[in-house]
């Protein structure tokens, strides 16, 4: 084994590989190949071997699988046992995990099992076998950027913020499937997910959507959120919200963007009637493009917006939804 081998945790949900996994595989490929290393992936649960083609396409040479039935849904302890065992098995120098709800939970537990360090929610990565793993990550909810490193401990863990790293396929053949025997796995995990309750209408989550449309106090009343929802729907976007309207009970906390909500990095963020309190800006200022729609030209949101629309959102939003609907219809 080389000193630059990288293991990627290939999270599955309902039998599917998630896009952040493809981003992590692409990042892993870049880290490993620069130093003659090789990428392996780990997928858990029945049917995990089915992902050999996509794992290979994005850079994995090997796909380790543990197809035990108890791993169908997330089981924090058992998944950590399997991930740590896989890291040992391939003698990984680096372990990359998507910073999804599952990955944020799993990576530190697996890292502790190997008495090693973990860099959380990183947005940039570099690796050198001598200097170790180095990353940039937003801290203080994006109000500052820290450069952090794991110089010596191996394997060095990192969780990768979704939507930040590109997912680039290659022409590579399917990964070689290798069943992994994990002696420490109990037949039935002690703690596990027993059921999953779906959000209404399969709503997109703000943390993983490429486009987020958010509403704030400027909407004036909870029923006016329909203007935001309509725009989100035509864009295929997730619906976000400011803390003020979440605290007022207009929309559940799962939609909150900001310091005590979710930190998002979408391609496009559209803030409707959000003035831009520091704690909201902290959650979305790393979006690639920010559109602010607000009638107050002095609103702080305009300081970080790419495009600022000074106007009445009740006039702008329906027209914008209609214009985009027409655009999509034209293809």
């Amino acid at each position, binding site marked *: 084994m080389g000193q630059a081998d990288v293991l990627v945790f290939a999270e599955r949900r309902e039998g599917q590989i998630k896009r952040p996994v493809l981003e992590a595989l692409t990042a892993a490929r870049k880290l490993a190949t620069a130093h003659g290393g090789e990428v392996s992936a780990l997928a858990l649960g029945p049917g995990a071997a089915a992902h050999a083609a996509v794992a290979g396409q994005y850079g994995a040479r090997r796909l380790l699988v543990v197809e035990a039935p108890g791993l169908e*849904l997330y089981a*924090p*302890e058992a998944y950590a046992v399997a991930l740590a065992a896989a890291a040992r098995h391939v003698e990984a120098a680096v372990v990359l995990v998507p910073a*999804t*709800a599952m990955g*944020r*939970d*799993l990576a*530190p*537990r697996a*890292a*502790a*099992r190997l008495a*090693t*360090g*973990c*860099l*959380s929610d990183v947005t940039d990565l570099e690796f050198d076998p001598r200097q170790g793993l*180095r990353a940039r990550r937003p801290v*203080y909810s994006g*109000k*500052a*950027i820290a*450069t*952090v490193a*794991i110089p010596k401990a191996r394997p060095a863990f990192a969780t990768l913020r979704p939507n930040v790293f590109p997912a680039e396929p290659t022409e590579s053949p399917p990964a070689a499937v290798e069943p992994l025997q994990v002696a420490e796995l109990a037949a039935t995990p*002690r*703690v596990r*997910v*027993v059921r*999953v*309750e*779906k959000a209404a209408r399969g*709503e*997109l*989550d703000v*943390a993983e959507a490429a486009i987020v449309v958010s509403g704030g106090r400027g909407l004036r009343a909870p029923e006016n959120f329909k203007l935001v929802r309509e725009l989100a729907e035509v864009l295929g976007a997730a619906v976000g919200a400011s803390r003020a309207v979440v605290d007022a009970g207009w929309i559940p*906390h*799962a939609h*909150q963007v900001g*310091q*005590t*909500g979710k930190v998002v990095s979408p391609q*496009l963020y559209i803030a409707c009637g959000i003035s831009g309190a*520091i704690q909201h800006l902290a959650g979305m*200022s*790393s979006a690639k*493009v920010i*559109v602010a729609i607000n009638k107050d030209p002095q609103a702080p949101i*305009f300081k*970080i917006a*790419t*495009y*600022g*629309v*000074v106007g009445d959102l009740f*006039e702008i939003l329906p027209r*914008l939804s209609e*214009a985009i609907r027409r*655009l999509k219809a034209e293809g």
Partner: protein
Amino acid sequence: MKILVGVKHVPDTAARVRIAEDGVSLDEREIKMILSPYDEFALEEALRQREARGEGEVLVVSAGAETAQATLRQCLAMGADRALLIQDARYDRADGLARARALAAVARREQPALILVGKYGVGTDEGQTGPMLAELLGWPHAAAVVRLQVHGERFEAHREIEGAVEVLEGPLPAVITTEKGLNEPRYPSLQGIMAAKRKPLDVVSPQALGLDAEELGPGQRVVWERLELPSPRPACRTLEGDPDTVVAELVRLLREEAKVL
């Protein structure tokens, strides 16, 4: 039931961030330190569990600088029974594993049935301590929990994932990390503040708990090399005028210039 709550004191979330001269730490002058907001949910949940049972003890533990004593005193004012500070300023910058080891050392002595910690300490925003602590103790955990029920020797926890809610079940003892939405933390009452002055707040060194101080110093696993402000975003292009023109121009820019449509 004995419940241990791990808490962290952090820079006030409303504060403007300034970088200190060393280029790697926060300029903490003029910054108020507060109880990390997610830890408030953890403490509130512990107090509610104790109140629902009419018995039990809530112990709050922190690892950090001497100033964390004020944060622990606030926890006592909210209703915790006693507090312990593992005092060493280097914990404020220590990695998740070092912090988890400190809490684990206390947990092994105290043998709580339940440990509650915030899903992460705001500021470093890592979320490592809880799952790492569970692993060190060999206990189950559930992270970022928005609803918690404890029946006898088992728990049921709800956590929000992308577009859904996961319901986990497991045995106690366990580590639970808490997310906004779990409860509404109480404010300390005047009576609580007075009572807190007489409650025990013990201070120990890491060495007294048998902890290796090396991982807090030069031998640390995770090194902070630099801290900087985000690069400023390009100036905003403002669109004004009648709504139809503005919308047409916005769509054009998003499509042709920003290329996000």
